[in-house]
């Protein structure tokens, strides 16, 4: 095996499609080629890092806390100041990050405003609608972001509706007792959603209730996805039925 073939062979190994003799040739080549050993080591390190990152990052509050700690850390301040003085390129780069961070803060703040208004449509006044005409530009921006988020929320709700429709399929191959368990747990999550909505109506500013609501939404989507994945596993060997499930997902 040549070095040019190693990447292809590694891909095949990852997919489980590598023949036994090719695997032996790959092992033999890697054992003797230092460059390819490095390639394999990099690939494994990357895999491990991706696994460690996981699907969930720290919560927004955790990030706030990290940022606050760094701001209050004199050693961090001193090092950051020294870096800024010594290298103007770094300084410019830092300002790009600051601009990006500012944009992100704007998006997050706007999304929270949107969330508050959309969840409390009956009672909550539109905070920016009453602002001065001088703020018309920022109003437009926020309104635009709100529209985007509104659209995203609708997609989100449609996705849940589609998932629910598939999961409630009367021809579900899942054992009825297991399906009953799934439905019970969906009701538990629905209760959490209702609790969070209720809390937001009482206190539209509550970040805790907002996080709780979105957490419950995410959990519901995950559970529905897992349920459908299970149904697909059960129907393996019946591609026509699996296709029907997939098309059902797009009807939301």
């Amino acid at each position, binding site marked *: 095996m040549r070095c040019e073939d190693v990447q292809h062979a590694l891909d095949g*190994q990852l997919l*489980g*499609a*590598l*023949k*036994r*003799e*090719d*695997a032996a040739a790959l092992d033999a080549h890697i054992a003797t080629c230092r460059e390819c050993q490095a390639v394999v080591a990099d690939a494994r390190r990357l895999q*491990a890092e991706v*696994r*460690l990152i*996981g699907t*969930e990052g*720290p*919560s927004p*509050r*955790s990030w706030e*806390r990290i940022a606050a700690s760094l701001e209050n850390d004199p050693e961090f301040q001193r090092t950051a100041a020294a870096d800024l003085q010594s290298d103007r390129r770094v300084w410019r780069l830092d300002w790009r990050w600051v601009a990006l961070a500012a944009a992100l803060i704007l998006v997050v703040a706007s999304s929270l405003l949107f969330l508050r208004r959309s969840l409390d449509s009956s009672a909550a006044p539109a905070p920016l609608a009453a602002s001065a005409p001088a703020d018309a530009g920022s109003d437009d921006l926020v309104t635009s972001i709100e529209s985007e988020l509104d659209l995203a929320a609708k997609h989100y709700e449609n996705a849940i509706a589609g998932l629910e429709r598939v999961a409630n399929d009367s021809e579900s191959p*899942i*054992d009825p*007792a*297991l399906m009953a*368990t*799934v439905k*019970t*747990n969906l009701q*538990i*999550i629905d*209760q*959490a959603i209702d*609790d*969070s909505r209720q*809390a937001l109506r009482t206190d539209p*500013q*509550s970040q*805790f*209730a907002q996080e*709780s609501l979105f*957490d*419950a939404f995410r*959990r519901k989507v995950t*559970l529905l996805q*897992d*349920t459908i994945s*299970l149904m697909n*596993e*059960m129907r393996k060997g019946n591609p026509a039925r699996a296709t029907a499930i997939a098309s059902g997902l797009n009807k939301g």
Partner: protein
Amino acid sequence: MRGIWRGVMCAGVLTAAWLPAAGAAAPHEAAIPLGAVDSAQPAPPPPPRPAPRPEVRVHERQIRRDAERGWVDSEVIVRPFTGGEGITLDLMNMLGDVVVVGSKGRDGRLSIVRRVRGHGPDTEELLRTFAIDVSEYANRVAVRTSMPSPEHPPGRGYRPRVRTDYEIALPSGTALELKNMQGNVRLTNLGGDVRVEAMAGDVVGEALSKVRMLRSMSGDVMLSRSVVEGDANLQSVSGNVIASGVKAGSLTMGTVSGNVQVKSSSSGRAVLRTVSGDIEFASSPRKAGRYELKTHAGDIFVSTGGGGFEFEATAFKGDVQSDVPTHPGAPGSRQVRGSVGDGSAFFDLTSFTGDIRVMKKQER
């Protein structure tokens, strides 16, 4: 062993002799109205039931055992396979228990027992025809159960059940990918990557090194006495999730309706979540460790054996209690903060309707 059986048989005989009398007395007492105790004559006790002869008892016991189990077994099938680093055992099972034990060397072994439960002429035929396919590729061993469709579909009400139980000796370093639709899974002493998804049944792991995922839709997930490289991910939907005596880079544990427990364990990071259950963290935090515990309708209980930590507890409707000095958190929130020792580790605790309790000494 013989003594135990004798004891069980004696207990059975005594219970059989006592049950008819007890069973007769209860309905009799319940049938008498309270106001009629003085006037009503108590009903005569039923005649004692003659003790069954030993051969009858054996026959009845056999019938009862058949009704409880009713499984017709095939012979044990043993399939060897080659495992080791870089090889994955990929097993999908519909119904049955799976036991996987780590072994030395590169020689693995599958011990498979097929079982059919049902009645009618097709049962024996079914047992003969449903097959286990074991396919070995360069870096994957795939095991599947295949059941041919019957030529003559059975009539209404006929529900044969087919299960396959596995006992697997898995060579050191071999990765395991297991999907078990219904049945319990037990894993012991495995050095390779482990990913198990059980739909209905418990998943129990012990002495595992690389826990990519242990998950059950309906059942408990437990990991004990393990030193895990990187993250240990334990998930359930309806069941408890427990880590006991686990040392890992990080712990990710979650369920919807069940409790989450971390006992006598150590990890640099932990994300523990449930919706309607409680969370218990009874372990010492690591220096600079970060622990996020979140439940919606349950309580959170943290008890640490030592080490400095800081915590931030938010209970939207419940109370926060602690044996360490606390102070209010963010203005207008129901947040409480506290610190112990150097405060290097950090706990982020949130419960929507439940209570939160933080103790610096382990109580339980």
